[in-house]
């Protein structure tokens, strides 16, 4: 009995210290948490700026894209004097993202800024949040539920630009035909699927053969394996649809030693910039996640203060980054 008691007590002490020691990535602007009562329906539009709690739920909490988005959001939060809590799941997982939305509602957050994994999966959870009075703003990827505003990249146009850049480089090198490989994330993420569609549309009427798309789940290692297979099959160009896919594609081109292959990608990171500067990737379409975060927070606060944004969709644009 003594042994069990000792084990129990030390277990509890261990847990208590580890939890309290490692808590909260909340900003300095911590709003006083409301007392644990049931009614979150009372999200008053007249809430004073200091009491506003916003939840930011992206697809995961690891990818540079989402980290930068959070940074933009925190910057706006600091300026406006509100609190934004980054509550994303560990990995891209519908079930976990739904739990995060539920937790945000239960935690008394007045607004949720969300980058939905897919248009359908979290719709029911968002509908429930909206009916409890929580304001919804989309960043990067919307879902099928009406929201105050959406701040995203026009993915199809950006994909087309990527395709046009690749064609320009190929034609300049005198390559007018050949296979092109596409490394995408999965068939469910709307944003990356749109980029692929835009990319493919740039190749209409051209003499290149676009191969069947392969999915690397946005994991750089998986994407690299796919790209290496494409290279073995003799492609002249590879398109990576997001950060992980692009990193994988670039690394595969580097490993192959064939500098004739034109690699074009999406998103910006140190790894990708290094690959571009070393000449293994031609260019990347850099989104502006920090702008999405900033504008998202501003819109959330505006709608909580009573302004009607009418569900506007704002294109936050891309920049073509080359050497």
């Amino acid at each position, binding site marked *: 009995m003594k042994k069990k008691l000792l084990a129990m007590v030390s277990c509890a002490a261990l*847990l208590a210290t580890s939890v309290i020691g490692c808590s909260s990535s909340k900003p300095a602007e911590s709003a006083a948490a409301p007392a644990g009562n049931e009614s979150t329906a009372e999200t008053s539009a007249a809430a004073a700026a200091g009491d506003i709690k916003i939840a930011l739920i992206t697809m995961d909490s690891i990818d540079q894209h989402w980290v930068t988005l959070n940074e933009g959001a925190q910057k706006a939060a600091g300026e406006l004097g509100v609190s934004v809590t980054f509550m994303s799941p560990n990995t891209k997982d519908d079930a976990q993202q739904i739990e995060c939305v539920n*937790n945000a509602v239960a935690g008394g957050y007045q607004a949720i800024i969300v980058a939905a994994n897919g248009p359908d999966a979290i719709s029911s959870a968002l509908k429930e949040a909206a009916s409890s009075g929580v304001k919804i703003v989309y960043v990067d990827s919307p879902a099928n539920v009406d929201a105050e505003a959406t701040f995203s990249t026009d993915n199809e146009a950006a994909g087309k630009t990527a395709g046009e850049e690749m064609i320009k480089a190929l034609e300049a090198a005198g390559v007018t035909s050949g296979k092109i490989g596409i490394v995408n994330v999965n068939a469910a993420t709307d944003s990356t699927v749109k980029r692929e569609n835009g990319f493919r549309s740039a190749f209409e009427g051209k003499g290149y053969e676009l191969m069947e798309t392969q999915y690397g789940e946005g994991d750089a290692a998986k994407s690299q394996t796919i790209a290496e297979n494409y290279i073995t099959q003799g492609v002249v160009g590879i398109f990576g649809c997001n950060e992980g896919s692009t990193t994988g594609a670039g690394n595969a081109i580097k490993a192959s030693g064939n500098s004739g292959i034109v690699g074009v990608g999406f998103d910006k990171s140190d790894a990708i910039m290094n690959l571009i500067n070393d000449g293994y990737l031609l260019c990347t379409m850099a989104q502006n996640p920090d702008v999405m975060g900033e504008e998202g927070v501003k819109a959330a606060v505006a709608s909580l203060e009573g302004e009607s944004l009418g569900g506007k969709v704002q294109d936050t644009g891309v920049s073509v980054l080359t050497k």
Partner: protein
Amino acid sequence: MKETKQSAVKRFLGMRGMGAVITAFAGLIVIYVAFGIIDRNVFSGQNVMNLLRSMSKYLLIGVGQSYLLITGNIDLSIGSMVGMSAMVSATLMTMGISPIIAILVALACCLCCGVINGILVGKFKLPPFIATLGTMFVSRGAAYMVNNNRNTDAIATGIGKEAGDRFQNFFYYGKTLGIFNTFWIALILFLVFFFLLSKTRTGRHIYAVGSNVDAAKLSGVNVVNTTIKAYLVSAVCACVVGLILCAQAGMGNMEAGNMYEMYGVAAGVIGGISPLGGTGLLLGTFAGAAVWQTLENGLNMIGAQVGIQRLVIGIIVVFSVLLDVVVRSGNFRKNTNS
């Protein structure tokens, strides 16, 4: 009168494995209170309801995995069966097939996998780790291929918005008597399997096979059938969790249930199920699942860093197994001395 009442309670508390269960519940209370102190919203009624709903998945997987652990085996395919169940039911529904039939087909697929597991381990004596590793990949592959390597569309596109809402409400979004249906489903299944394990002959056979498989065989226990039954329980649990995930998202996700087999082991082990087989109470699995979910929920609510949850759960699992080993060696000495 008083004497019999006392001895009943004492008997309950003195059951083998109850010590670990009590420790697990005590740990649960400590964790819950700790998080509540950090963020008062953890105590809110809405959060408690969310907690009960989200722990249902781990509870069911925990029960399935516990059955196997008690027999001294393991089921690595339980997570993939979840994915297979979610994808099969979602794909059929997007094709317009009625939810009831979709559910039955998903159940049939999982039971099939369970029988295969049982035969491979029970009859052909394959090491359970290897056998279920194989069926894990096969089921996950099936989950991928069912809808041509892509996630399904929303189930409402096949069966219509009304039927889709009914399905989603039944398994995830709806409430009965103020508590989410998901929890009721998990609770009812938990009670059924609890009864099966503690009060029926099959249950006793399951403990026997886990304790000492040769002694069990010599006492007339049909080891092959018992093993198959345990894997069938696991398959049923996986099927239901797959349906819950399908209802949660309103569509099928190919990666549904990823890593759940490990969470099931963790839930069982935290509750005192010994990975060596032969002991453990399902009540402990309940506590284990609750501990896991409370941690996940609490860390998410306070916006804690990504790796912390994994770190803490890992420490708790090791602690629990250590406790089990220490208590076992202590009990052994106590029994031989008396």
